[in-house]
């Protein structure tokens, strides 16, 4: 068994306590409204996602895709409506859900002055149920999976290209193995090879029971990995299309 698999096993029991809850729906949003100051980011979202689904979020810029992802991870509060993620009511407490959700955002969450290895060791060390010194086998395997060479993993992150930083953050996601992945434009900045890796990771995650919601303009890639696609316009979800991917009847999306 690889170091990473053993490591993930160690994390497993920690996550188990919540496995009993609401296993049917990973995400449940009803008329959710969220503000940033006086600007409505979400103007009433209804969404239901089951465990293991891979949902593709599409929409024009400013439609609210990023905001929705940030709301789902509990970074932005919901002021109206109801929201339940992995069994947690985010209107009551939006902090606890964060240990079980991973967000791949526009920013890399990496410290530029440290190299990828040190970054991962730091971020992984946060998990209280894992040893604070992460076994190096875990890091190596994660980097191999995302195609980051050893040399690159030892370079300060500020010297890496956007695509390489993306891969480093993906390595973190891969190593953390959380139950819900929220990906904001995961393919952005990656070459063809990198995009394949992202698709593989999503497929693999879904197979092992992770729920994935990702926002992307890459319709082709989305087609191959998503189980369904929804469109956002004006802070709300319109025309959720079931099965494969629809014919995109909203303009500009």
């Amino acid at each position, binding site marked *: 068994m690889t170091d990473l698999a053993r490591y993930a096993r160690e994390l497993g029991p920690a996550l188990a306590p919540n496995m009993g809850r609401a296993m049917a729906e990973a995400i449940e949003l009803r008329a959710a409204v969220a503000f940033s100051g006086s600007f409505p980011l979400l103007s009433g979202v209804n969404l239901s996602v089951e465990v293991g689904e891979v949902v593709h979020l599409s929409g024009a810029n400013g439609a609210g895709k990023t905001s929705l992802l940030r709301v789902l*991870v509990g*970074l932005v509060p919901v002021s109206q409506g109801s929201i339940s993620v992995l069994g947690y009511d985010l209107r009551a407490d939006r*902090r606890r859900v*964060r*240990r079980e*959700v*991973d*967000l791949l*955002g*526009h*920013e*890399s*969450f*990496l*410290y*530029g*002055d*440290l190299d990828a290895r*040190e970054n991962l060791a*730091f*971020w992984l*060390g*946060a*998990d*209280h149920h894992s040893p*604070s010194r992460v076994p190096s086998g875990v890091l190596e395997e994660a980097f191999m999976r995302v195609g980051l060479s050893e040399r690159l993993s030892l370079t*300060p992150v500020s010297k890496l290209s956007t695509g390489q930083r993306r891969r480093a953050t993906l390595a973190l996601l891969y190593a953390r193995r959380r139950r819900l992945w929220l990906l904001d434009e995961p393919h952005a900045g990656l070459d063809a090879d990198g995009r394949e890796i992202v698709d593989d990771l999503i497929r693999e995650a879904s197979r092992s029971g992770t729920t994935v919601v990702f926002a992307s303009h890459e319709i082709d890639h989305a087609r191959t990995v998503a189980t369904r696609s929804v469109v956002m316009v004006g802070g709300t979800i319109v025309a959720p299309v079931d099965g494969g991917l629809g014919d995109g009847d909203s303009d500009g999306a």
Partner: protein
Amino acid sequence: MVRDALHIARKDLRIEWRTRITAFQVIPFAVVVIVLFGFALGPDPARLENAAPGVFWLAVLLASVLGVERSIAIELREGAFDGLRLAGFDPAGIFLGKLVALSAQLVALEVLLGVITAIVFQVSLASFWLLAVASVVATLGIVAVGLLYGVLLASSRVRETLLPLLFFPVIAPVLIAGSKTWQAAISQHVSAGLGWLELLAVFGVVYCSIGIVSFGPLMEDL
């Protein structure tokens, strides 16, 4: 909380080690401040000796603002504050970790600066232990206030201008107490210095407590 604090402190110190910004930028800045004050106050040794304590602490405070600014800026780049929230670190631990890391750097600066001030301002320092303890205690209070305001303003566009405005008035008692402690050390009236040390300790305890309690809620507003 303590585990997280150590984790974060180690990370901050490692970043400093990598970039040496405090070492090569902040310390030289503080030294320049001391020297400039030396020029401003003139060559009269009596006047210099009188001024030395205040000048030392002023330089330390100016350096502290830079240090706090940097400590916060590190987390703001690439959204690391968000990352910290998502990773599940205990916010009180984050506060303590950054407190310890930055304080350690500043205490190192103070040791160096103390020596330079003593030389430039021609004062003889006795009672080293009094100065050392006062340094550590005062620094913890200074950094606590700095981090509190720093994170309060972290998401604000006016952080860099507002931070000094908010920081310096609150920190005035530390300036007073710190200078008085130095004076006590110079004149070797240790008992007087102890009274001021108590004040520094009260200040430190109050603001470290506020920090531990409010860092979490403050981080949520970023």
